[in-house]
């Protein structure tokens, strides 16, 4: 389309404004963590790093951070195994219902979190409680893993579709065993996709709040749960601001790394 000069300028301005709107709130959160004032008034009267050290010594925050990291690592580990297995099956084999698998995998993330949350909550209640296992970190990990599978799956499947199975066949023709071909040929090909998927799964788990609300036991509090609990308490506002800033940084960094690792990463992995 031959756009006129005015149209180009208008589009550039609109896009610039769009990006400004997308990033402004995130920058505001980072700035606000340096706000010496307890209220969120704008502009802040100055800048201080005091709240960062206050937050760093807050026992509730430290505990919640630790819980979030453990939940994220556990969920990522499970999602890596399940997502990779599924991706290999879908990309390398034909079987009945293959198209349904990609639909099934997206469901946990596409359906409202509250529905997934209460479904898992009542299932855990009926199945695990008679066994003497209550809600806790374990159930959070199981819940998170369920919706993290899609991220790993999408990353690995995209990579496998771009690298034909003929490489492995060539390796086997040259005398490598199936295992040898996997270790020397297939695994190096998908390694960066696996790492990207893992980073994104961790980021997803680290942020999640709705399913977490319903799968965490009374004593288990992840960082998002801690924020949500303390958001309405004016006294905690500065610490909440710092934790929010940490969450922005901690979720943006893995995504940045994932994008550098794998070109087909985040484009399709969350949708």
């Amino acid at each position: 389309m031959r756009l006129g000069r005015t149209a180009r300028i208008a589009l550039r301005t609109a896009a610039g404004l769009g990006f400004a709107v997308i990033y402004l709130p995130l920058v505001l959160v980072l700035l606000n963590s340096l706000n010496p004032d307890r209220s969120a008034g704008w502009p802040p009267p100055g800048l201080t790093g005091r709240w960062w050290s206050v937050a760093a010594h807050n026992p509730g925050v430290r505990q919640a951070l630790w819980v979030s990291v453990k939940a994220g690592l556990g969920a990522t580990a499970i999602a890596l195994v399940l997502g990779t297995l599924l991706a290999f099956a879908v990309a390398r084999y034909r079987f009945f219902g293959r198209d349904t698998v990609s639909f099934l995998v997206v469901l946990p993330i596409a359906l409202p979190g509250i529905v997934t949350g209460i479904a898992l909550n009542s299932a855990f209640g009926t199945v695990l409680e008679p066994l003497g296992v209550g809600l806790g970190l374990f159930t959070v990990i199981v819940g998170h893993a369920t919706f993290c599978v899609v991220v790993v799956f999408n990353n690995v499947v995209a990579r496998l579709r771009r690298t034909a199975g003929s490489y492995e066949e060539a390796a086997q023709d040259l005398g490598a065993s199936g295992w040898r071909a996997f270790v020397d040929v297939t695994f190096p090909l998908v390694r960066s996709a696996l790492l990207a998927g893992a980073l994104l799964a961790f980021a997803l788990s680290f942020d999640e709040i709705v399913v977490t609300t319903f799968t965490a036991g009374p004593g288990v509090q992840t960082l998002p749960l801690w924020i949500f609990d303390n958001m309405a308490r004016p006294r905690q506002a500065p610490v909440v601001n710092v934790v929010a800033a940490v969450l922005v940084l901690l979720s943006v960094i893995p995504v940045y790394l994932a994008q550098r690792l794998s070109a087909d990463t985040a484009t399709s992995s969350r949708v």
Partner: protein
Amino acid sequence: MRTEAGRDPGRRLAAILRRRPRLRPVLLLTAPLLWLTVLYLGSLAVLFVSAFWTTDSFTSQVVKVWTTDNFHALLTTPVYRQVVLRSVAVALAVTVLCVLLAFPVAFYTARVAPPRRRPLLVAAILTPLWASYLVKVYAWRLILSEGGLADWMLAPFGLRGPGYGLPATVLTLTYLWLPYMILPLHTALEQLPAGLLDASADLGARPARTFRSVVLPLVLPSAAAGSVFTFSLSLGDYITVQIVGGKTQLIGNLVYSHIDLDLPMAAALGTVPVAVIVLYLLAIRRTGALDNL
């Protein structure tokens, strides 16, 4: 040497798998499919069955007797109807706003920006998609607070920010899901063959006509795909409303408020967004729009 340890059982397994190739996908699929169907779909199924149970109003215990009372209440109670309609209206408003805001951005990143800068711009759209949902909502709570950024920016015009309430909820949800709309639009616009646009111009169409008759029909499936996210994510939300919505109630809040005392009713209420979303997904999948993502 590193494969030495795993060689023997590995070899034996490989030999078995070579003799029986059909066993391979079965081996790969068993664990993930068990997880997703038994654990996930199983839990969902039990939840929806429980929508047909009731709760004893004295003891708050679930009574496992088959009844459609909950769905009857859902359809006849004015409050429920009102909240359902409001939620659908919010989800539609968010979707429309997302399309309107996303289109110029996507058009710029896909067709106007210098090709060298495009990957960077795509990354710039993607990154905030992964930034914490809760923190993004919190950011809007800060912006819309009294004396916050919105008030400060509008003060020179003699205006005030919208404060917390329904408009704030729509605004925040639009912000949250906007990248989900920009991305598919960007992809569709990028794949639009330049020849088509030139042909349209050669045949005498002005840009507005080309846009209406060529660009729009080709991009519409992708907008539909993006709308799956903007619509369904808005429909099920209850956290955003709690944080910036003031006293506004959406379907998610209604579900949430029933969980402790009347789980069957909560389950029945929860079927509404799920039914709408599953229908939407299936319809979209049929048009093939999901393959465009």
